[in-house]
């Protein structure tokens, strides 16, 4: 299995250069929201390990909201972020980036303060030193590679066409014969080089060990600290409820221009991007709670929700939570299926509790009770706040723009049926119905 990795390269934009940078990034799109995979700056389409990527200019448009907490907003320069999710390890991927898009990236990052800087002789070094690790990272299906996605999509397409061709001739009820024909067809197509089903690579040894250590280590450490947690629990609960009751609530409707700018980038493909940025609620209590929850989120994403669903949500391909500005600010990015409104409704109704947990410690979020209750359930406040904190994504790329996460897992099941024979008629029928 090939594990997935992330990168997120950031740099503050030079004074007065914001507009030119925006214009430059816009040249990577055919139209707003529609990336050109073959663009001259970063030809995303040429990276066969890259799932999703985006350029976003992170601006603190809601910085003043923290004043409600009696805190002076910290300065925040507009910051360019280039982030993506890909197969394999970061070192080789960044090298590939430099090789295939070096001049384009140099052109883009030259808008950033400190590029190039004295300590990094090469672009590669600069990228490496300006990378930020997420606090929590979600991958819809750990181990599913871009290559696999494309191969399995081709398999589905080919099988689907052939099945329609032979269905009546073989007889629709004759499922075993149909399967046999389909399987021989796949063999033939493979022989002819029209279909490829590359077997998964063995998992890298280092990754396996690291993953196991993480899988066992985190619960172990938590167990070790559990007496301490039990001890502080009453104080934690008391303080939490105090804050939840007293934290200022912001009911600010996002401006029409803001919504218009965001929605102009959406619904060109079956999936959409979401970038959101805001302040963590002030105080050590909130910060530690936030970090602890993201630690658990990351653990759950890595070891529990790593095969097609994040609690009840099956529409997220990749998502990450990133702390910035010395842990005072949080950036969240996701890649999801469907339109924005359905993404949010899905969230509220299916995993409102999870949203409350992971975003309840951010400024502007509707008040929660006991970390998981209410919050997003207050639909209008929640929808206002998430849209208000959303920031436009200048460029967004997804290697398989017309496929939903559900389809990717369906295609994987179709392939599984090719490789592992079903025993019962019922299983065969189920397999055929997927095609």
């Amino acid at each position, binding site marked *: 299995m090939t594990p997935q990795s992330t990168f997120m390269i950031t740099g503050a934009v030079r004074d007065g250069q914001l507009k030119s940078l925006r214009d430059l990034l816009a040249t990577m799109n055919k139209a707003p929201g529609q990336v050109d995979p073959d663009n001259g700056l970063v030809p995303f389409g040429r990276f066969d390990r890259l799932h999703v990527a985006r350029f976003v200019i992170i601006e603190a448009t809601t910085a003043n909201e923290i004043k409600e907490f009696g805190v002076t907003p910290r300065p925040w320069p507009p910051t360019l972020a280039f982030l993506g999710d890909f197969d394999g390890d970061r070192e080789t991927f960044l090298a590939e980036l430099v090789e295939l898009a070096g001049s384009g990236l140099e052109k883009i990052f030259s808008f950033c303060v400190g590029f190039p800087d004295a300590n990094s002789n090469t672009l590669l070094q600069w990228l490496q030193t300006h990378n930020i690790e997420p606090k929590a990272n979600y991958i819809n299906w750990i181990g599913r590679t871009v290559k696999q996605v494309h191969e399995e999509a081709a398999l589905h397409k080919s099988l689907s066409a052939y099945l329609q061709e032979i269905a009546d001739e073989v007889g629709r009820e004759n499922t075993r014969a149909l399967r046999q024909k389909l399987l021989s067809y796949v063999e033939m197509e493979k022989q002819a080089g029209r279909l490829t089903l590359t077997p998964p690579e063995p998992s890298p040894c280092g990754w396996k060990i690291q993953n196991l250590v993480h899988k066992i280590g985190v619960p172990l450490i938590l167990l070790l600290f559990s007496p301490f947690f039990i001890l502080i629990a009453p104080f934690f609960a008391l303080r939490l409820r105090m804050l939840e009751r007293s934290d200022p609530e912001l009911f600010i409707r996002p401006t*029409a221009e803001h919504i218009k700018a965001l929605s102009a980038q959406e619904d060109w493909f*079956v999936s959409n991007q979401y970038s959101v940025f805001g302040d963590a609620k002030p105080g050590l209590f909130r910060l530690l709670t936030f970090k602890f929850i993201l630690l658990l989120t990351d653990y759950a994403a890595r070891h529990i929700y790593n095969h097609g669903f994040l609690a009840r949500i099956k529409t997220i391909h990749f998502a990450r939570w990133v702390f910035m500005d010395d842990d005072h600010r949080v950036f969240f990015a996701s890649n999801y299926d469907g339109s924005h*409104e359905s993404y949010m409704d899905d969230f509220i109704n299916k995993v409102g509790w999870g949203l409350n947990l992971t975003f309840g410690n951010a400024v502007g979020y509707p008040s929660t009770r006991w970390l998981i209750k209410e919050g997003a359930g207050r639909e*209008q406040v929640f929808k206002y706040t998430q849209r208000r904190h959303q920031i436009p994504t200048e460029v967004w790329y997804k290697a398989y723009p017309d496929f939903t996460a559900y*389809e990717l897992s369906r295609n994987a*099941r179709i392939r599984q049926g090719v490789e592992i024979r079903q025993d019962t008629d019922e299983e065969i029928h189920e397999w055929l*119905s997927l095609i």
Partner: protein
Amino acid sequence: MTNSSDLNFDDLQALLRCSHKNLKDTCFLLLNIIDADAAKQWLNSAPVSNAVLTDPPPNTALQIAFSVDGLRALGLKETVIDSFSDEFIFGMSGDESRSRRLGDVGANAPEYWDWGGDAAQVPHMLLLLYAEKGGIKAWRETVQGKQFLKAFKLLRELPTLDIGDIEPFGFIDGISQPRIDWARQQSTDSHERNRYSNLLAAGEIVLGYRNEYGQYTARPLIDPKQDLVAAVLPDAEDQPNQKDFGRNGSYLVLRQLDQDVPGFWQFIDKASGSMAEKREQLAAAMVGRQRNGAPLLPPASEKIPGIPDDDQRNRFNFDPDPGGNRCPVGAHIRRANPRTGDLPPGITSWFTWLIRFLGFGGKPDEDLVASSRFHRILRRGRGYGPVLPPEEAIKPDAPAAERGLQFICLVANISRQFEFVQNAWVMNTKFDGVQQERDPLLGHRKPLISGEVTDQFNRPDPAGPKHITCHLPQFVTVRGGGYFFMPGLRALKYLATLPAKGSEISS
């Protein structure tokens, strides 16, 4: 909690409570206000029908709704207008991104509409007149009165024709409607009900009441200290020191949908080898009901709140048919109302609840669709064009004529209800895991950006591979549309007494 006695049906327009089914003649008028004072005078005495039930029911009815420009023309202040939803303020055709979401692209694009396509010239007002057979002309004269021509300019008289219970393709229409929980008996808490219910919180359809989230949908509230005229308005339930302009009002979505009846039946006839029985089967599979309205599924074994036990046409959900073997997943009625609950079926104990709640224990194909209760609409449309039975429509010389539906629905939240249903369910090529298809009736057939086709219709077969019908043409084309606000009767009075533009009455 307040109870039903607080609900003032005399302040609701009747359309929220009944569809005026007995009033067969209709006349839908799109108007512009040319003289605000005259319009207000007319409005002040207009015989608008309220929702109090009478016996016998009245033999005429009048409902009124305004677009945002209509409210502006009457002099409603911008500060009040700003509190309406973005969808209403910018209109159905006002934003390309919205058109894209709604599927108003290609032949559906607003630039080709007969009316409402130019966001700068959306009609101010919609008048819905209803009368018993033969009575519409007299009723129209009564309603219009003397001031009418001075006040308004008639932009368009939308075609309507009584074609009975059916819509132009020949299917009985309007069977599935939410039942409004006027008495506010049902809890909106997901813990207390996680299965599909047809009983819907009043606040999903009428502004000023709690919706399915237990919240009050955002709407214009007016401080009576700042605006003396507002005294006539009802109080805001959640903020008693404010007057509620939205209370007892509702957003009215109107779309004129042209239906190509010969095109529909001729395609189906060809696809089913001109065999009458197969033709009916394919058409029923696309709609999700037989032409007589019978659903393709047997009645549900359990009770469904809000649906009478003996209502054979409505007492079902799709839980027993997850794969669409009986009713294809892509069928029109399944897309328009998937009858889903808050949680997938199969919860029998707190343990299974927890397992499902955390996302475990289900099959990969389950739980792909949102809970229905947040996305219901109350339909009040009327058909138009001469009836053309399928047996006639399949003939190559079937008489061409303008046929279609004046689709009307009432909602409290345009984006979460109408737009969501239209976008996430009806037009979505990935709805509930379907492949390469949009709604077989309503969908446009534009391919995806990668070229993947969307013009198929898939019928799963319990015995073998699914049946695919390819190359569906577009059967329904949008010809016009707009978002309107249908105020409560006191809000109408408020509008009628607004000071003329420029002058201000305030304390």
